[in-house]
């Protein structure tokens, strides 16, 4: 542990907070990957773009409500409206994608839906970038109060607190829907066995659409949170968070909902705290740009040694 004392405890606290903040965004996006994989065994490559659509829907709402000038209680109203708009836009996009690009291929050779998925991803990201924005980057209005909570020398900004709290609340609601409602039960049944679920009277198509929609709503929320935190958004913004969220889903064991959440936080921490810990080793210097490499290396390592995920007990469920 002695290496830790080379830098101040505050530094490590900041790293942990940053890791948890980005981790909660990864976790929210990872839920969509893991749920769709659970019911269809399909990597939904367009999920990163669903996340992007949510970010833009939230951006549009904030802009329409006055952008930079939103203040007072209106901030809360604006944030709630932005989140609702993002959830609706992302959910509608995902339902349309499922209907047009995936459902016709449900019984096709397994390569077909994957290619269709990557086609949707390319189409959506370039439609926004080349079709609407001409390659421009848009910036979220910084409406969130700038202050921070201080505990002695340790600081957390309100924005980061909000991000962590809001994503936990959203995940709790999702967990409740999956575990306690009839809809959630039908989703779990279809994930277990599509044929058996159909025999038991579950409307399989409805459950699949609901899976896409729920995952997409989470991704849409994540898009708004991403915009509030990182500010710049563009058509191709979903690519890297998409790959990372998928990595998170694999880390936690793909198909498992709690696994995706744990995987998301783990990946967020690995990128920040993990990278800084590696930097403590003499001779190692990984600047911030290498965080993507860390995440990717982690994905490959997990796939080599524990393809069922690092936190799962049962063997051979997937992969």
């Amino acid at each position, binding site marked *: 542990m002695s290496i830790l004392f080379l830098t101040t405890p505050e530094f490590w606290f900041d790293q942990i907070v940053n890791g948890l903040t980005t981790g909660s965004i990864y976790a929210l996006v990872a839920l969509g990957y893991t749920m769709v994989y659970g019911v269809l*065994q*399909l*990597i939904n*490559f367009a999920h990163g773009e669903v996340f992007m659509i949510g970010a833009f829907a939230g951006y549009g709402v904030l802009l329409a409500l006055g952008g930079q000038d939103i203040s007072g209680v209106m901030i809360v109203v604006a944030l709630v409206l932005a989140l609702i708009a993002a959830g609706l836009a992302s959910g509608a996009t995902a339902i349309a994608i499922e209907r*047009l*690009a995936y459902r*016709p*291929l449900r019984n*096709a*050779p*397994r*390569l*077909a*839906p*994957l*290619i*269709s998925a*990557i*086609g*949707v*991803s*390319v*189409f*959506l990201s*370039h*439609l926004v970038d*080349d*079709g609407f924005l001409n390659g421009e980057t848009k910036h979220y209005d910084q409406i969130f109060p700038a202050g921070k909570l201080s505990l002695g020398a340790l600081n957390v900004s309100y924005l980061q607190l909000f991000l962590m709290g809001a994503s936990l609340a959203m995940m709790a609601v999702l967990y409740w829907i999956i575990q306690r409602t009839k809809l959630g039960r039908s989703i779990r049944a279809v994930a277990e066995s599509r044929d058996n679920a159909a025999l038991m009277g579950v409307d399989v198509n409805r459950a699949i659409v609901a899976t896409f929609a729920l995952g997409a709503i989470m991704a849409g929320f994540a898009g708004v949170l991403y915009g509030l935190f990182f500010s710049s958004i563009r058509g191709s913004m979903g*690519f*890297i968070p998409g*790959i990372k969220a*998928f*990595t998170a889903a*694999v880390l936690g064991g793909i198909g498992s909902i709690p696994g995706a959440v744990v995987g998301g936080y783990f990946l967020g921490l690995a990128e920040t705290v993990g990278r800084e810990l590696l930097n403590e080793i003499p001779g190692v210097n990984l*600047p911030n*740009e*290498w965080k*993507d*490499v860390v995440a*990717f290396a982690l*994905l*490959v390592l997990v*796939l*080599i040694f524990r*393809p069922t995920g690092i936190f799962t007990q049962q063997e051979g469920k*997937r*992969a």
Partner: protein
Amino acid sequence: MRSLRASWGRVQEQTWERIPSRLRPIVWFLIAFSVVFINRFDDTWMRMFFLVGLYATLGMGLNVVVGMAGLLDLGFVAFFATGAYTVAIFGSPVSPHDAHLNYWVLVPLAIGLGALIGVLLGLPVLPLRGDYLAIVTLGFGEIIRILALNMNDYTRGSSGLFEIRKPDLGFMVIEDVRAFYVMILVAALAVWFVTSRIRDSRVGRAWEAIREDEDVAAAMGINTTRYKLMAFATGAAVGAIGGAIYAPFIDFVAPQSFSLQVSINVLAIVIIGGMGNTTGVIAGSLILIGVPELLQFQETADFLQKFAWLRDVLNPVIHGFNTVTFLNLPDLPQPEDWGKKLALYRFVVFGLLMVIVMVLRPMGIFPSKRRELEFENPPEAELAASQGVG
């Protein structure tokens, strides 16, 4: 002599005669066209033909992976970059690690390194379900760009490497666009020959079996991991060849040339052209690479001037529409910009086409005969199972 003639006959049988007879005149035309008219075109046109040839070559490489073995590789740019950087790092005076090696020594090195990276990347994921390969290659395609950007000691980061030594044939040095075009044509023919021979071999049949049903293939005694690795490494080697030819042609090797879009271009060519089929890949390259380049030519802009009157007709309509709907749609741009604007939307079209092709014509626009039959007549076993016999 007889054996030579016999083997040539076999070559002809298994390559030339595989091209559907209705497409053969087009191939003849293209060969005649490329040889006879090579001096009729200016450098812009030759550059386009070179790019079409380059992407056709890359497409044939990816076709081995996606079309023949049924593995989805979304990071083909990684191998292209490996080839280009091998030639640039060891063959450019500005590089910190210039090895003063001849270009022709570097090409086999590039091919070897490409295949090696393919094996190293494939080794952890190929024993798993195919989906993981897709996401790992997607990530790796991006990682290689980040690595190239940050490993300044080798790649000089975004300043890039240039003054790359040109291929020297002894009697001439390849530096003209035309010479590079002939070079890529030769490379494309070589890749075509080799890949089509492998496809018809025991290895090719193993790939086909794996593509159709991995479990059954394994049950028949095929070492699936080994054959999948072989396909992946073959594709990677072809990607590296493309990179090794591209580097001296463009003479500027920098991370920004190796974005995700290269992978998407190559994948779109293979998917839209027709998986498993070389003619389809060439057609795909002509359409997907040739047309967007063509749209950006001065000739196209001059031609479009004839349609300037469309602006006078459509702009009032747009204005009227804007007043009614409170939208703010822009005016129609100047006709000379139409081609460039359209070329800008190429990836929107590619993405859409990939979905449409998968949903409506999953064997591609120009499918291989074998593949077409598979899609039209499902194997008997499956039929039996669906009828409840199996």
